[in-house]
């Protein structure tokens, strides 16, 4: 594991966390989608680089799926959904940007402490990847928690899945089964979300989760 390989992998994983932060910052839907595409792009690059370092050909497949699906197809589809739903101008943040950022930093610090302290023996690259992956997962969760709009929640969830893909690739030699399953989940997630969004749209002519909440069971 020469220095350069480690540094690049380190750089890519770090930039993935940085993009997650940027996503957290956005409050416009369009900008959010663009940053999500960037997020998927960086992920694809990182996976590809991992494939190159570990010379594990199957990782290239994952990188391709990540690039093709997540970076291109899903943002475009979501883009079209937003246009049809006509919600592109809405601003919907629950928590102020400042607090979200502070929370994000806290989470990253927490994941660093937890992961690095725990994985002493494992090789440095895997440790780094896991730490960054946990950070991305926590940031994804934070994004889901601080958003009202169903689409942004889904984007938060997908960036969380990206963190998982990063973790999976970081674990050297994890059999192909994992890659398929991760991809498998993206596919299902996307289809289901699509169906949901349309049906939700049909039913309540808005996709704001808060309106949805009014119809919780037993409320009336």
């Amino acid at each position, binding site marked *: 594991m020469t220095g350069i390989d480690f540094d690049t992998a380190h750089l890519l994983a770090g930039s993935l966390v940085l993009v997650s932060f940027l996503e957290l910052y956005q409050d416009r839907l369009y900008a959010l989608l663009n940053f999500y595409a960037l997020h998927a792009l960086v992920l694809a690059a990182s996976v590809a680089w991992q494939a190159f370092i570990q010379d594990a050909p199957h990782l290239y497949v994952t990188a391709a799926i990540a690039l093709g699906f997540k970076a291109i197809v899903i943002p475009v589809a979501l883009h079209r959904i937003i246009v049809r739903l006509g919600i592109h101008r809405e601003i919907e943040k629950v928590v102020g940007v400042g607090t979200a950022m502070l929370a994000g930093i806290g989470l990253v610090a927490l994941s660093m402490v937890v992961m690095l302290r725990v*994985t002493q023996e494992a090789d440095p690259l895997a440790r780094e990847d896991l730490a960054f992956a946990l950070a991305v997962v926590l940031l994804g969760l934070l994004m889901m928690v601080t958003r009202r709009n169903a689409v942004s929640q889904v984007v938060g969830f997908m960036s*969380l899945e990206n963190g*998982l893909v990063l973790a999976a690739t970081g674990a*050297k*030699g994890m059999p192909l089964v994992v890659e398929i399953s991760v991809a498998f989940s993206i596919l299902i997630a996307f289809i289901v979300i699509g169906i949901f969004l349309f049906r939700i749209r049909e039913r309540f002519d808005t996709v704001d989760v808060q309106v949805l909440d009014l119809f919780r*069971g037993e409320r009336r």
Partner: protein
Amino acid sequence: MTFDGVTFNASAGVLLIPACAAALLAVMPDYRVTARLNVLATTLTLICALSLFFGRPQPSAYLLVDDLNGTFIVLTTFVGFTTSIFSASYIGHELEIGRLTPPFVRFYHAMYQVLMFAMNLALIANNIGLMWVAIELATLTTVLMVGIYRTHEALEAAWKYFILGSVGIALALFGTILVYMAARPVIGEGLDAMEWTVLVSRAAAFDPALLDVAFVFLLLGYGTKVGLAPLHAWLPDAHAEGPTPISAVLSGLLLNVALYALLRFKMLLAVNPEALAPGPLMVTLGLLSAVFAAFMLYRRRDIKRLFAYSSIEHMGIITFAFGMGGPLANFAGLLHMTMHSLTKSAIFFAVGHVAQVKGTQRIADMGGLIETHPVLGWGLILGVVAIAGLPPLGIFMSEFLVVSSTFARAPLLAIILVFGILVALAGLFLRLNSIAFGEPRGPSAKAEASYVPMFTHLALVLAAGIYMPPALVAWFQNVAGLLG
């Protein structure tokens, strides 16, 4: 029929039959035929599962049948079989009153078989990744089934179930990856670093700190699927809004499958002496859910949501039992899992009939069930008596073992648990009074569905409460030893 030939088919059969049945059902138009086919498929799966009892196949790279999942496979297929009989008449009635259109019924039956496939796969998967995929598939099918009625609440419940389920599953995947990370330096890369048989044999050498972190993620991930307290939000609404057979399968089986996954990982950690995570974590979450759900029973207005919270409470008690550990408590936990799934599905069968007979699920609009429908009324009472943990039925034995073995070691915990059980019993019977007794309220149509599944379950639980077959006891005790 050579043994090895048959047995290999049996474990494969348990998977193949539901898979191809699902495919077949997706295309069959007529409701009459699909309902019968559904029952036929579950019967065949049950037969395969029973044949597993007699000859266990060698664990392969992807499939494994041992003491722990042997019994749960049979339980899952049996409850699946009885629920399919119940759902045949239930869905038929839903079709008549127009709550479901034929295409949706076709979708329902297909999804039902996919769910069976997913659960069976999760139970006998030898590879932790494969198990994760199976549970993820089971969650997605139930999400679609919950949303099948397309009412506002159903969609909201499905959407909530999807979001929380996916977050839970994501955490579980992260936990699985961490377990793989811990296994890799000891076992090396590739498939066998994710196989239960190999993992359990070599777990003593894993890094305990990493295993603890992994268990935290696994507990939160699969704990969401089990419905433990802070992560339970999806369960009541999913039960209340989905069709009743699905609530029965959800409460009876899916919670067990998720808890089974947790047990597998707890067995893993039990082998590693330094790993301490499972005990205190599971005890706190278990107690929290038992007491929290007990209090939630009082203000419930919807009958299915009431029994959903009762499921959360029982899952809390079971997790508490496994958290305490020791042969007695583990045996009690395993027994409680089996008894709870049988009783809760029987209760949901009864609730299904009640909802159809009274035309509503609001407890305020029903009353005097004993007078209008004596058999159904007494069936529901017997179910509630069983779920409250009163004697002749099986759950009393498990609660007896858990409370008495815990009180000697940790008196305060036992007192909190007893408080939870008592508050839950009071809440359950308070609601039962307004449903079963008093002046008959609300419409009372004639219930034409069969009561056979309900009473078979209650008869089994009654039998287990009095006499347990030695083979079953031996398995449970053996597994209780393994669980540490």
